């Protein structure tokens, strides 16, 4: 008959086999690029962006003549008639400047310069030594907006192809 100490050690040894290493299989559900859509007042039909260009507060162009220049969101997940605005990772506010004709405006209308300033909370989440970290954006707010009105559609950014975060009306 096995003595108590033998029983304990055989149990410990058998359970030690449970340990193993791991690889990065993590895929973040979060994005730090809010998706914005444009509407005429009183309508909920999204309008195609018709700007000449869109710049960040640092003066770097992220959109020009129908082409998104910088975005981590792949073309498969991009919503039609929308813009993804990459947020400043170093601050809790980001400014975006829209140059050109507003979406849905007549072709002969004068170009405009519109500004959108967003405020948000950055939450860092360490995932693992293989995967690194993810940055979550929470509590999105609109600080300044030169359109007629603006609406936050989703405060938490879950990267989904059917999620709109900001609606701008004019």
């Amino acid at each position: 008959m096995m003595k108590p100490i033998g029983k304990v050690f055989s149990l410990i040894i058998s359970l030690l086999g449970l340990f193993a290493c791991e690889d990065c299989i993590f895929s973040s559900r979060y994005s730090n690029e809010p998706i914005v859509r444009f509407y005429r007042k009183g309508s909920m039909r999204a309008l195609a962006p018709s700007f000449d260009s869109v710049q960040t507060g640092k003066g770097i162009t992220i959109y020009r003549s129908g082409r998104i220049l910088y975005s981590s969101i792949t073309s498969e997940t991009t919503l039609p008639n929308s813009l993804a605005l990459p947020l400043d990772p170093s601050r809790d506010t980001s400014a975006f400047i829209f140059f050109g004709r507003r979406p849905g405006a007549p072709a002969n209308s004068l170009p405009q310069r519109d500004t959108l300033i967003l405020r948000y909370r950055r939450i860092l989440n360490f995932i693992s030594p293989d995967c690194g970290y993810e940055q979550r954006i929470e509590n999105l707010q609109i600080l300044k907006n030169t359109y007629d009105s603006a609406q936050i559609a989703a405060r938490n950014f879950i990267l989904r192809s059917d999620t709109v975060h900001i609606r701008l009306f004019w």
Partner: protein
Amino acid sequence: MKLRNSIIILALFTCLTTPLQAQPQPLLPDTLRLPLGQQLRAWARDISFQPYALRLGTDLSYWLNGAVSAPFGRRSIGENLKSFYANTLRFELTADLAFNRNKHFIVADWGYASTKRERNAEDNLRNISYHNTGTYWRVGWDYNVLHKTFTDRQSALLLGFRYGRANFEQQATYIAISTPWGFGGTPASPAFSETISEQLSYRWWEMVTGLRVAVWRELYLGYTFRIKLAGKANEVNRMLPNEIPGFGTVRSNMKLSFSYHLYYRIPLTKRL
């Protein structure tokens, strides 16, 4: 056939009418009918809150885990061992006080943990260095389910619960690349880097089961299997806790863990 039916009917009649025919019995003293004060005194006599033995010990699982996980890494066993012990430091002191002989235990643990983790890949994307240091304590109660079987009053198969609390500091330095904001990750446009430091506390609950076995005189070995129910950190400002001293890595609402202990028991009474 008629005789058998008659017997059955007679038996049924007897069964149904016996309570009616029974003579009233005088009321006998019944412990359930004792006044509440006497019941409590009887219960206290049975429980016996007199401390029976104090067991002091330490958690060995940190040392064993490092040794066992070493062969599974991507590098050599020696490098894995060195990396494990260089990046992780943990020790835990544990004590349990037995009372009601070997039936009930009050348990208290105290520990210190320090963990370093980093991603330092060539792609420079999502690279981060994470450091977490803090202390924790747990208090709880264990019940020896085999207190009648282990007649030597030494070994125990335990079921119990714990309440845990950790106070720790976490610090992370991370790199972010964002070309639209001038952080391209090139010499002309270096990546953005920031260091975050936060002081947090965290609390959780555990359901535990374990075994304690006397191996030589007053020396004991034992294991504890824990089902940890994730709690909540207070006021997370910029960074979610990843590693919590005493709880471990936070990945889901429930966590299972296994630890092995070495104990020394100090008898507090000569009466078994």
